[in-house]
């Protein structure tokens, strides 16, 4: 199918959008920021019969705190997240991750919903959403279901989202007092880079020392989907996070990952970098904790 043969509908309400998703019989795809979707269209991978352009659904662009957590609308851009004082205060790891996405133009265009929908194993915001226990709200004409992020992805580019569904909300837990987070990324350069390996860390510190009361670690680009590093997480609380403790924890990271080799890096390097980034992230976090 030629690009000029693809239709586009821009629904004015979410209800209208869900209706179309439900009723349209040929291939339909959601189009928001376009940073992935338009690239895939140009490359010939995505040539749906219809683009459902939801960029104009302004109601789906929000960041607010509710009883059950912080709600982030799927059309929230990366720039919105970087600039959100609520997220800066209670989801610093997500702010760091959003800052590392592409560059200004891409952050202004790309949305968190799009990042989840395309399900790239290298997507920078996804590890951060993992450590913030994100829940993805999927809506269709038949109702709403909420999926914990760890169950949302089933493989590279694949999620549990049905054709008739769209992401309508992302709910994350606010970080607690004394919880600090960081996003570490290794790319081939410092801006506009696709991650070779990335890791999100969020730690709950106890008191003033280097003792951690618990934390979460999630790696990207080292497995078919983002993965939690549960063995390392267990170790976080067993020893002080001084240089030696950090080195011990990080040295286990390679066991948690299952990377592949591709044009960007070898599997062996990615394994070692899981350790390196976890070490660097923890060192930087502890420095920040010390300087606070």
């Amino acid at each position, binding site marked *: 199918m*030629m*690009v*000029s043969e693809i239709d586009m509908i821009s629904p004015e309400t979410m209800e209208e959008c869900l209706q179309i998703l439900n009723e349209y019989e040929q291939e339909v795809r959601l189009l928001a920021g376009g940073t992935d979707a338009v690239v895939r269209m140009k490359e010939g991978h995505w040539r749906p019969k219809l683009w459902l352009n939801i960029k104009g659904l302004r109601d789906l662009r929000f960041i607010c705190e509710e009883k059950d957590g912080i709600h982030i609308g799927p059309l929230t851009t990366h720039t919105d997240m970087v600039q959100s004082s609520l997220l800066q205060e209670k989801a610093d790891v997500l702010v760091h991750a959003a800052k590392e996405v592409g*560059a200004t133009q891409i952050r202004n265009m790309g949305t968190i919903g799009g990042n989840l929908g395309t399900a790239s194993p290298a997507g920078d915001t996804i590890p951060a959403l993992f450590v913030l226990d994100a829940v993805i709200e999927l809506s269709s004409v038949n109702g709403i279901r909420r999926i914990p992020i760890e169950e949302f992805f089933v493989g590279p580019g694949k999620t549990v989202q049905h054709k008739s569904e769209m992401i309508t909300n992302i709910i994350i837990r606010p970080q607690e007092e004394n919880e600090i987070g960081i996003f570490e990324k*290794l790319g*081939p*350069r*410092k*801006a*506009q*880079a*696709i991650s*070779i390996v990335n890791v999100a860390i969020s730690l709950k510190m106890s008191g003033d020392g280097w003792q951690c009361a618990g934390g979460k670690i999630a790696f990207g680009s080292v497995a078919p989907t983002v993965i939690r590093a549960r063995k390392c997480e267990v170790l976080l609380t067993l020893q002080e996070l001084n240089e030696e403790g950090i080195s011990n924890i990080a040295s286990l990271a390679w066991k948690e990952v299952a990377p592949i080799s591709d*044009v*960007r*890096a*070898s599997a062996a*390097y990615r394994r*070692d*970098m899981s350790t*390196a*980034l976890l*070490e*660097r992230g923890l*060192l*930087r976090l502890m420095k920040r904790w010390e300087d606070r």
Partner: protein
Amino acid sequence: MTSKWIGKRVPRLDGPERVTGELKYMTDYHYNNMVWGRVLRPPYPYAKIKSMDTTRAKNLPGVIAVLTHEDIPGFNGFGIVVPDQPVLCEDVVRTTADAVALVAAETEEIAEEALALIDVDYERLDAVTDAEFAITEQAPKLHADGNIHSHVVIKNGEVEKAFQEADIILENTFHSPRQMHAFIETEGGWGILEKDGTLTIQCPGQYAYRDRLQIARALAWNPARIRVISSPVGGAFGGKDEITVQIYLALLALHTGGRPVKIHYKREESVIAGMKRHPFKVKMKTAAKKDGTLLANQVLAIADTGAYASLGGAVISLAIEHSCGPYKIPNVDLEGYCVYTNNGIAGAFRGFGVNQVCMGIETHMDMIAAELGIDPIEIRKKNVYHQGDVSSLGHVVKGSVGTWKTLEAAEKCDLWINREKYKAEISEPWKKRGVSIATSFHGVGMGIGLPDYGAASIQLLPGGRFEVGVGCEEIGGGNGTVYAQVAAEILQCDVTDIVVVQGDTSRTLDGGTVTASRSTYTGGRAVATAAPNMLNLLTKAAGEIFGVSEEQVRVADKKVVVYDADGKADSSLSFAEIYDYLYENRRDTRVEGHFMLPKEKKEIKGSGGAPHRLYGYLTHVVMVEVDTLTGETEVLRVVSIPDAGKVINPQGLEGQAEGGAVMGIGYALYEDTIIENGYHKTTNFSNYILPTVKDSPQIETFPVEELEETGPFGAKGIGEVVMIPIIAATISAIHDAVGVRIKHLPATPERVYAALKARKDQTNQSNEENVM
């Protein structure tokens, strides 16, 4: 004499149209009745074409023409030196960069669809993808004469004897990347068959007259019937030196019923079809005495030119000519091969082979200095040649030589003096810093055996302004402003009174290429040759008007002044008045200037064009910071110390120095076009890693001016050497920081990390051995 314009930071005269988007590049033009052209490329790197059928494509509604080799009226080939690249392949394809057929259609999409409907039956052949294998007897022969396109040798002294007498010998092998020009404007342009039967090709290039000849040869046309407009150019760096799409445009334009045809590559097509820098394997063996005196250098360089020659032969010649650095080495044995493979196509690229060999000799200089405990600047000063000395090639260097001065300036720059202090200022505990230097040189102009001349025209315009016409295209460097400065200086007017026209066979004279670091020298000198003729024209006319002899008339400060017998200014005429007089009397208002570039008389036997008469020189000082956890390298500071002779426009020179430095950093750390088994793995800028602003350091430029007596106001050239020594300096700085030497570029985080890990493993192992 104080200069009014030479040496001044004159802002670019074409600045306003560039910063507002008003400047029309060739790919920005629009014609209402246009059609789109596309090129069919083969799916295999090496295959026989058994048959071709264009019927289905021709029958697609909206398709205007489908052309194959059968539609080429003239010679089916192009190539600057040896035209071995088919315009459209006939019986064999040798790279996925080849062109097999052309389509013109009403829309770009229809053209694309038509490409898929051209039926080509291929028989796949085993691709030759390793340059060293390509030289062997077993390798399939890609061209009738075999796979060695060129072989150059320079020998001097007795190398083996010197190796026996040496106190220190180093031997290493260096691999260099297939760098992509990555000009921001991809290849493209327009072909228009005019109503009078002439052809206009609007297509960015680096030598309109030669492009015209290559087009004419394929069409079997008289070149005079073809007009090529090749300027302005959205970046070139050598990548638009060869024919890009000009011949395709010309062929299609002959079949569209006079409708203008446009081709503009998407970046993906540019990545595959465009020329790249030759990847080299350089084996180098260098010997020195205890005191640091260089004794011998032995080099074997193998360049992978891909499927076709283009300028590959010249590249390997220049590499060998420069493979000993700007040093006096009495015994040398230098050998280079340019080899065909099925890996895309390589051609001209800023630096032209010198980048690859400089990495070898400068790394060895650094290693010798370290091993002997000599300061790295001192050892270089000890070995450099000066003007009038005999170089490693055995010829007397006649042009100006600034290496010594650049090294002295490096020694005195803040970064070098205070390097230990700066190295200690690491940003995080697991990072390490290093500071290093390297120096290099680069020939200006074509070398022996190639035509090399300059020409410019100056025309007096109504209102008293001047149009300066120079063939050399504006490819970004700001040569147009330089030409205006030279003209204004001699014609004693404002630079804003000069209108510069470049790169148009109907409006500018043939003055050679904008390559080989030659456009300031050549264009500047051509203007400086033409300008006195304009002065004569002005004074002669004024003499006639006033009825006095020419000797009593001089051009001064925007007018022509008549002096009385006592030498006192009597009366004057504006240039506008002179123009009016000439116009009314049907007199010519245009002058020309021509000259030949100075060349060495005798070619070094077997060298393929060495030596050059002129060289530019440059020393870089570089500071890096390496993350020992990940292997990431960041270049933090660069000091660039060029000797370009007289600097005509310091802002323009800095622009070259800064841009060249970052391109060199890209080569050293990030950039490589990956081709596996003849197929490009690199597709676009998502996986071709160009430095962004965040990867680029603070750059300072301190020119030393070793005036060149033959150059315009003492100028030489600078366009290429600006990116050369920084490569070796960056890699040596990594060594200074963390103790590992990367010999396979680019030094990606993964390669640096692997080297660090290997060293750690080795240390652990040797520690264990010690314990045992």
